[in-house]
């Protein structure tokens, strides 16, 4: 941040302006949900089915929001960069699953072991399971933190990434504990419904419980982070050595923040286990989860608890929408191809003609015209970026057109990978141009 945010940021203290970035963020979330609903209507789903689907979006987004809150406490407040979010998430999910399921012995059909069984089956209440999940993940965070927190940020990142991948190996192979590749199924729902509407009612209860938990932890974190304790965390983030010289035992603060953040990630895992009803060492705990959470926190503005929740709903929303629209994108593209091509040609022609006119014009008015525009482009960062962006967009348009032309269906088939590429692009652009996030951390005015 040192080089970018020195003078260019206007002082927000004066006057209350409309918080444009928040408005845009909320409108974007609304658009995502509406587009998802529209996709459902087009597919001819029942209103209840559509609502269940939206409920699923909300419940997973809530889980990501809890993950993002945990990471925000670690990175946004304390500056501890955790690359193993997926690992703490996994611990929480498996602890919850082992604690609350009924016993499930190994299944052998005709001498072939079909299911290896798993540890536990303690049938504990959900709340107890969630607390155990938080304790387990928080404890794991302490264990990994003790050697790694003394070192530079990149050591911590590598150590946590290694930790997460060891856990994935364990989950896959330690069959007697985790159920192996199949995982643990039959995780009970909060309330058992016996009716045709069970999925819908389940979605409603889970969203309700999830929102309540999210709200509770948002308030709790807001209270803690805005307290003198949270102020020390922010001081550690800014300059650990200086904070130490101000009389704070910085290691203790880092340990506390890392453990509490890890516990929150464990809670997210517990929610995940209950929401899906099963856990398996699948893509749910892959490193991509960690990277998604990074994007959520960076988009939301690290150090801003409400912001990272908005970021979680936004970024998971894109993922959810890409699933909803998977079937429609190729059709829409195929149908709209001539229009898109025409549009691109027209825009290109207009641009070329405009440029030509401009060149002619500038010959008669030397002080204006090309030179001035070029200078402006060089001087104003946003004009330059806008120009580059416009060119890139235009080029992308043609790439789409040619892909559709010569390899129909390629875009629709690879939409998941395109989404991850998009996350990568977002990470790079945000970290270069707007590291403080779209909803940036606010200034604390003390009275």
């Amino acid at each position: 941040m040192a080089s970018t945010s020195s003078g260019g940021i206007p002082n927000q203290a004066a006057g209350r302006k409309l918080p444009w970035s928040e408005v845009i963020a909320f409108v974007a979330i609304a658009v995502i949900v509406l587009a998802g609903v529209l996709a459902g209507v087009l597919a001819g789903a029942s209103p209840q089915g559509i609502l269940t689907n939206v409920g699923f979006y909300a419940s997973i987004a809530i889980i990501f929001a809890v993950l993002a809150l945990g990471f925000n406490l670690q990175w946004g407040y304390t500056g501890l960069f955790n690359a193993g979010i997926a690992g703490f998430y996994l611990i929480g999910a498996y602890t919850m699953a082992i604690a609350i399921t009924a016993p499930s012995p190994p299944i052998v059909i005709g001498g072939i072991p079909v299911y290896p069984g798993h540890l536990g089956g303690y049938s504990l209440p959900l709340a107890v399971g969630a607390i155990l999940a938080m304790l387990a993940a928080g404890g794991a965070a302490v264990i990994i933190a003790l050697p790694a927190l003394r070192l530079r940020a990149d050591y911590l990142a590598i150590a946590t990434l290694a930790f997460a991948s060891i856990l994935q190996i364990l989950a896959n192979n330690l069959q007697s504990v985790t159920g192996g590749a199949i995982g643990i199924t039959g995780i009970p729902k909060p309330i058992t419904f016996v009716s045709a509407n069970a999925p819908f009612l389940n979605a409603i209860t889970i969203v309700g419980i999830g929102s309540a938990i999210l709200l509770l932890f948002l308030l709790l974190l807001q209270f803690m982070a805005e307290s003198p304790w949270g102020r020390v965390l922010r001081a550690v983030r800014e300059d650990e050595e200086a904070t130490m010289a101000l009389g704070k035992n910085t290691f203790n603060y880092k340990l506390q923040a890392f453990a509490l953040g890890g516990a929150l990630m464990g809670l997210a895992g517990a929610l995940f286990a209950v929401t899906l009803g099963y856990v398996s060492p699948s893509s749910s705990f892959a490193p991509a989860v960690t990277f998604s959470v990074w994007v959520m926190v960076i988009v939301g503005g690290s150090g801003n608890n409400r912001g990272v929740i908005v970021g979680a709903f936004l970024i998971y929303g894109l993922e959810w929408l890409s699933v909803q629209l998977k079937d429609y994108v190729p059709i829409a593209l195929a149908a709209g191809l001539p229009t898109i091509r025409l549009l691109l040609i027209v825009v290109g022609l207009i641009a070329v003609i405009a440029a030509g006119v401009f060149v002619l014009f500038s010959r008669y008015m030397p002080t204006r015209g090309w030179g001035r525009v070029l200078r402006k482009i060089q001087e104003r960062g946003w004009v330059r970026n806008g120009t580059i962006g416009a060119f890139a967009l235009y080029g992308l348009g043609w790439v789409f057109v040619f892909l559709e032309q010569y390899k129909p269906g390629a875009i629709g088939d690879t939409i998941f990978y395109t989404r991850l590429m998009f996350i990568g692009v977002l990470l790079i652009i945000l970290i270069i141009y707007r590291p403080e996030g779209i909803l940036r951390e606010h200034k604390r005015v003390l009275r």
Partner: protein
Amino acid sequence: MASESILRVNAVDKAFGGIHAVDRCSLTVLPQSITGLIGPNGAGKSTLFNIIAGLYRPDGGEIWFDGTRIDGLPPYEIVHLGLTKTWQIPHELRNLTVLENLVLAAKGNSGERLLNLFFRPRQVKRDEKQWRARAREVLKLTQLDGLANEHARTLSGGQKKLLELSRALMSDPALVLLDEPVAGVNPALTGSLMDLIEKLRQGGRTFFLIEHDMNVVMNRCDWVIVMHQGRRIAEGRPEMVKTDPVVIESYLGG
């Protein structure tokens, strides 16, 4: 004699990869004095300060502060004993406000312990209020009160120096180590800053400062210690040091 001193550095050694930054350096600082530490660049002055404040661990020797041995103690415990240092290059907490920077420097703010937030909310509130009031007093003293709610990164270089001093005062230290307190500060401000230090000294604090500005050293310090190549080569009253042939050879003249 030694029992009278507030700080006693005894044969402290520190080497960085073969270079002896501090070479069996010994010195004492008397209570309620303004003691200057001068020497050419690379003499090991800042390193010595960092060792005293606990940021580096000495390779050998011992450091006594007010009857307590402090070498090897972590910096935060040394601060709690009443010894604070400022930085040569200001280490302001950039994205915190000036007031936040100051309140952070307070010792024993109960709200900084996580459990107190939940179990002693009243005390936390009282402490926080008290420290904010104290911080505003200190800011008045250092004439930064107009900037209390600005981000520390927006301050000028001189203001950051003042912020460093203000933060040091927040912890109510008996001894303040000032690393070039007036470097980069404009001359008018330098005068008032040194007046402030003089006033605080009369209030019972001790100042030990590194400075290159000879005006400040000669007019404001009661005692001057000269370091060269990691060692103390001379000390005395400013006017005596000024005429010391050893000092002139190694520093002032050269």
